[in-house]
């Protein structure tokens, strides 16, 4: 072996020693045949190091203001190549684009990144969600907890903590919100407008806000409070806080309050509070049998009535005219939205039908089978989502149930909902349409509604067209779809 040592001196050249060591490291790793390489400013100490490493065997006249590039390689060619590579690296300017790969790993790390943060959106597993929410509240952030499986005790404690700090605590189990025009979670693209919504129901908020948007109006804020806020233990803590906030909010002219069936005692307190509201207010407790009106304080039964009440004019009034085939008498529904399922039950029940559901409203029977009777199943309920995505994200489970219903000879109408928006399946209408197209030629009527807007990623008009092309009747609202089903059976909607 006869290794070759070569060096080169650059006069009057200074570069930071760390940068120089980096270049040397690259020479050693990238240039074949290089045994040792160093780039050093020619101070006496550095020259001694170079000499000891056998890199300047022939000596050098470099001084403290000069750079020494020194290599030892297995042969002349490799040494020359290394010196050339060193020069090229020294000439190289930062080529790498700015932009950081850094991801914070904690709330506090994120707060260091985002000045003026005002909301924490938490969707970690339920066992950890309360701790994250508590931390966020203590940092002065409003909170939205998408996670479920948070204990009632934690929910109450978090909402009390939020109230003490004057913060919003949306959730747990809050999937949807609209804040100052920004959709958060599973929400739709909704223009700003005069109507503020407080919702203990995700798809309830989506349906009301989408109906308002499609009617040309809009929403100031849609505040989700979590599915259990009107349960007895929680006592509408956040509903009250959100109502008060919308009363103060200058952008809100009319308040809509939406909930799945609440605890009766809590419902009474909320209605008392609504009666004294500082702004016109519409309350929709899905499944409750109350309808009432005290001037501009109204209690309505369905989401579409809530939208109409807030807007002051009808929405989604035109129904598809359909007639069920002889011998078919049942209405069955397969829903991805829990509130949409509850709303449809309300319409059918109030239309005089005996109904069943896995998520029954007052007056409905509990059942999980489509085998007999008028049955509406909520495929977003817990029993269908363990270990799988919610059907809003992947509607396969629901669509499978529709496929089964298409073959049943006594079913007159299959009701289904298509929920659009951020986070939802990219083409839920296409998925349902393929199921229906593949079904038998003699099949029940399929009546669907699309919850969403033109601004959503899926596009309202495109989704409606897809359904229509597949022979699915599209109603202008979820309640209208249920009413059209009643009419198809010869009942008055």
């Amino acid at each position, binding site marked *: 072996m006869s290794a070759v040592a070569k060096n080169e001196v650059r006069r009057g050249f200074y570069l*930071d020693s*760390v*940068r120089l*060591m*980096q270049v*040397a*490291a690259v020479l050693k790793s990238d240039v074949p045949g290089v045994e*040792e*390489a*160093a780039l*050093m400013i020619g101070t006496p*100490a550095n020259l*001694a*190091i*170079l000499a*000891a*490493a*056998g*890199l300047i065997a022939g000596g050098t006249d470099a001084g403290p203001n000069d750079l020494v590039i*020194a290599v030892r390689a297995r042969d002349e060619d490799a040494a020359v190549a290394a010196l050339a590579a060193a020069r090229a690296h020294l000439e190289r300017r*930062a080529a*790498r684009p*700015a*932009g*950081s*790969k*850094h991801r*914070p*790993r*904690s709330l*506090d*790390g994120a707060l*260091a*990144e985002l000045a003026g943060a005002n909301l924490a959106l938490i969707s970690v597993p339920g066992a950890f969600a309360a701790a994250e929410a508590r931390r966020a509240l*203590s940092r002065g952030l409003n909170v939205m907890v998408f996670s479920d499986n948070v204990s009632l005790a934690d929910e109450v404690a978090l909402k009390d903590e939020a109230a003490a700090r004057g913060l919003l605590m949306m959730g747990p189990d809050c999937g949807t919100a609209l804040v100052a025009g920004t959709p958060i979670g599973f929400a739709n693209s909704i223009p700003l407008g005069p109507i503020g919504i407080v919702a203990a129901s995700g798809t309830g908020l989506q349906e009301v806000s989408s109906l308002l948007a499609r009617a040309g109006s809009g929403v100031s804020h849609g505040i989700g409070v979590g599915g259990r806020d009107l349960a007895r233990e929680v006592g509408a803590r956040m509903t009250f806080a959100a109502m008060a906030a919308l009363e103060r909010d200058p952008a809100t002219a009319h308040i809509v309050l939406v909930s799945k069936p609440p605890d009766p005692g809590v419902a009474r307190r909320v209605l008392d509070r609504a009666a004294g509201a500082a702004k016109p207010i519409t309350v929709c407790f899905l499944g409750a049998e109350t309808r009432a009106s005290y001037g501009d304080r109204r209690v309505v039964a369905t989401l579409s009535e809530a939208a109409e009440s807030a807007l002051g004019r009808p929405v989604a009034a035109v129904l598809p005219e359909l007639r069920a085939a002889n011998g078919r008498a049942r209405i069955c529904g397969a829903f991805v939205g829990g509130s949409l399922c509850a709303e449809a039950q309300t319409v059918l029940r109030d239309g005089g039908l005996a109904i069943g559901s896995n998520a029954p409203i007052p007056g409905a029977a509990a059942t999980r089978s489509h085998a007999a009777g008028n049955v509406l199943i909520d495929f977003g309920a817990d029993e269908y989502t363990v270990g799988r995505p919610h059907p809003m994200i992947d509607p396969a489970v629901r669509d499978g149930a529709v496929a089964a219903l298409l073959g049943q000879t006594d079913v007159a109408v299959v009701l289904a909902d298509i929920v659009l928006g951020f986070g939802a399946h990219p083409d839920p209408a296409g998925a349902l349409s393929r199921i229906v197209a593949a079904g038998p030629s003699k099949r029940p009527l399929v009546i669907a509604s699309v919850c969403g807007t033109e601004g959503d990623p899926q596009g309202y008009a495109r989704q409606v067209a897809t359904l229509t092309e597949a022979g699915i009747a599209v109603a202008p609202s979820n309640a209208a779809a249920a009413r059209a089903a009643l009419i198809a059976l010869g009942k008055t909607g």
Partner: protein
Amino acid sequence: MQLIEEANREAVRRIAAAEPVLVDVRPAGEVIPALGDRVLLHAGPPIEWARMCGPMRGAIAGALVFEGWATDLEAAERLAASGGVAFAPNHHHGAVGPMTGITTRSMPVLVVENRAFGNRAFCTINEGLGKVMRFGGNDAEVLARLRWLRDELAPVLAAGLRAKGGLALNGVIARGLAMGDEMHQRNVACTSLTVRELAPALAQAAAAIDKLAAALAFIGANDQFFLNIAMAMGKAIMDPVCDIRGSSVVTAMARNGTDFGIRVSATGERWFVAPVEMPKGMYFPGFSEADANPDMGDSTIVETVGLGGFAMAAAPAVAGFVGAGSAADALDWTRAMYDITLVRSAAWTMPALDFAGVPTAIDIRKVVSTGIVPVINTGIAHKRPGIGQVGAGVVRAPLDCFKQALVAFAATVGVE
């Protein structure tokens, strides 16, 4: 817990209130009462001779000869191994020391006073690069330099500092961060600022012009001169933060070449130790990772106050030690430390992060929760005594120290 949040607020308040001032240079034996005959202070948590690494043993042997407690290095090793000398960590006596951190009574120490709290902290003077005692060097050249530091440099510095009334350090650090220092691997700006600040007083106080010239030449030739000042400063800032009931803030991190140890405010003087890790970095020509000693030194006190690896964003050049080495990487190393600290310093900011403050006050809860451990910029010593520095790089604090500390900390607040 409310107790913890309040205690940590107090810890942060004390850190922010600190007013470190370099006030003097004194023989260690005059300011550290424990430094009697045949007593050596060392870096890191407590350790006995049998478990000490090569450089630590080498430095001890050199120091024993330097103090005249042994006639030669072999005799010194025999003396140390026979139990004829006493060892204690610098941290137990208000001091810190770089790498091996050996401190004995006649060595001059920099004295930093925290004027907000009245406490003082000490650190030996930086010997320069190459073969030096802090990296285990112990030959005649090393000992001769130590004598020069003791007999020539220290008196000049002491006279100048006293004439000036001390050098306030908060401002030096702030300016140094803006000039590309992170005060661990890179101290060129702060060293220069120190010379600029001290030169007039040194000139006025110097006994002879040639002694002044020699002193200035030594400081000016040593880019790392300020490191030891920064270390004494870190110790002076963190000592008043010790023993706050309920505080989960780290008050010291230190390594002895064998173990890495941390202390936490609420658990006082107790050390939580784990095997120290190997630095990852770049090596001087002729050396490689095979030559490297495990991580060593009390210099991690600068990370404990939010500098060093925590302030990498201020020193893009240092990012070269940590991998790909772009300036963006330097920012990311600092940003990661925000996940494990309580506050951003108001006084010490980094231009490249839009003048965000350095991440300050390490919370052991955050470390254990995220699994992110403090990043430390460090020099790398040769594993055999007497050779000295062979490279520089980055090392991580072992997570296990923080896990142990969390369990013990929880017990202090009644949580099991």
